[in-house]
């Protein structure tokens, strides 16, 4: 008889495990519905007429799939021009940060120069100041540089980042010094060491920073909102607020516009999903 309890015990554990699994998946599916459901409703509404969207109780599938809302959204704002602006803004800021931040990070991590700690402290100060609060003087600077209402004004300040410098510096510090020592003995200059030895090794860090910068640049609202006045120079995020200003609460049109504005990022995310998530995870754990 001694084996009997063990068997029942095993059974109950299997049962409990299965119960646990079912509970876990139920919970996860509920979370997915809550988190991804709004996108589905956005998609469905975008094909309804204004009158249908205000039916009570609501229809789930559109009575007839009505594509006009997309046309209205596309004529309401110059969507393609804005898409181009958003892409340029995201790419220039990302490339700028990857290059400039990695250069500065290299200097902080590997070069022993006078005044390093003072400069480091200044960078730290920048990090502590939320840039949203600096928009008044930044606006004045753009005015002085005669750059107001240009795409350059949208991306210029975002090409420099204290955060990016810190993130990459952490990466460089964690890399073994031996490889560089070998290169140095071969007579390589710091520029060469930075470019051919450190940058390739720091790829995960660069990808993480690149992805974060790209997402933030794409989604940024306050700064482009302030600095652009002509729709031809606006990014998609500002364009959406303009669309909302025109169509007010005509939700089917607004859903179509929002969907168009977010599709590129969603597409990039679906393709690069693994990198995006790993990049984010990496930026959160210390390099």
């Amino acid at each position, binding site marked *: 008889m001694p084996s009997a309890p063990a068997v029942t015990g095993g059974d109950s554990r299997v049962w409990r495990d299965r119960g646990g699994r079912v509970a*876990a998946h139920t919970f996860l599916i509920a979370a*997915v519905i*809550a*988190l991804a459901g*709004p996108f589905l409703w*956005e998609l469905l509404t975008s094909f309804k007429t204004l009158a249908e969207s*205000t*039916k*009570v109780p609501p229809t789930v599938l559109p009575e007839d799939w009505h594509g006009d809302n997309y046309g209205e959204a596309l004529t309401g704002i110059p969507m393609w021009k804005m898409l181009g602006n958003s892409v340029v803004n995201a790419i220039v800021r990302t490339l700028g940060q990857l290059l*400039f931040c990695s*250069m*500065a990070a*290299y*200097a902080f991590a590997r*070069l*022993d*120069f006078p005044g390093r*700690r003072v*400069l480091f402290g*200044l*960078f730290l100060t*920048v990090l*502590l100041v*939320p*840039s*949203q*609060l*600096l928009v*008044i*003087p930044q606006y*004045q600077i753009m005015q002085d540089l005669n750059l107001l209402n240009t795409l350059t004004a949208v991306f210029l300040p975002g090409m*420099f980042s*204290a955060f990016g*410098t*810190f*993130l990459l510096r952490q990466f460089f510090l964690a890399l073994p*010094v031996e490889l560089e020592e070998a290169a140095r003995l071969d007579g390589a200059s*710091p520029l060469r060491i*930075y470019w051919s030895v450190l940058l390739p090794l720091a790829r995960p860090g660069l990808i993480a920073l690149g992805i974060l910068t790209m*997402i933030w640049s794409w*989604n940024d*609202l*306050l700064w482009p909102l302030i600095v652009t006045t002509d729709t031809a120079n606006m990014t998609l995020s500002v364009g959406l*607020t303009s669309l909302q200003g025109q169509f007010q*609460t005509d*939700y089917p049109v607004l*859903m179509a516009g*929002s969907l168009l504005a*977010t599709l590129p*990022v*969603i597409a990039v*995310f*679906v393709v690069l999903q*693994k990198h995006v*998530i790993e990049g*984010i*995870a990496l930026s*959160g*754990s*210390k390099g």
Partner: protein
Amino acid sequence: MSLPAGAVAMVDEAEAAPVAVADRPTAPGRPRRKRKGRLDRHTGLWAAFFLAPTTIGLGVFYLWPVVQTIYFSFTSWGPFGGHTFIGLDNYEAIFQDPQVGVAARNTLYFAVLGLLGLPVSLVLAATLNRPGRKGVSAYRALIFLPVVTMPAAVAIVWRWLFNGDFGIINSLLGSVGISGTSWLSNPDTALLALAVVGIWSTVGYNMVILMAGLQSIPKQFYEAASLDGAGPVRQFTSITVPLLSPSLFFVSVLSVIGSLQTFDLVYVMIGKTSPALPQTRTIVYLFFEKAFIANDRGYAAALAFVLLLVISAITGLQFWLQKKWVHYA
């Protein structure tokens, strides 16, 4: 997720500083010291080369504006530019303006409500992190989707979901016998509704950070605990939570900093004429209103400077608190 920048570096500073600042490339015992003078000059030039772009960029666009903000905070602006020095009048006005206090309270509420999303992220992360869990990457991707979506777009979609008459949320509530309200224009519910959207758009981000943290916890701890007869709940509270505390600290700092800077959601979801604006006006929104709607830039600059001090104080407080509960392995 606007500007979690501060938080990241501060966390990493807290841990890395002792190692990092102790100038590492000068390994002891190398014969390099003799040639220090020459090397320094070269190194200095190289450092200048590598640091110039970022230093100039940060100096022009971030450091100099801090100085200017302080200067502007002592000035009064005309409706179309031009400013005159008025001393401390703006600060006096801020401390007498009831709107500032209300906006500060709204912002704090919003930050506290935002923290309620952390347990959700933690449970999601722990559930997904179980060994042998199927479909992890699909779940993770779908849960993460809101993070990459533009807040302006998200805000428009949620305005529709929360619509009092035709929104799907009220339809769903109605089907179980609950009658909803105009969530975003009802002053009693608007801030809560904003917080729901705030949480919705950061749950996935926090979850991913916490999952990374979970993966760094050695499995042996759990095995040992199992042998000691500790159940999953016990393991969660006595192993997961303490060992995850650095990540938890990181996401909570981030969440608070993000909440303190909320602008997009209020701008798009509430707007200038909503009856709920007084109850949802955040500090940054107030700053924007003063600076770019009322064109009272001197006042706005003073507000910005005060907020700067407050954010520093709150971040400092969080670091002080972390000593009480965060365990670094």
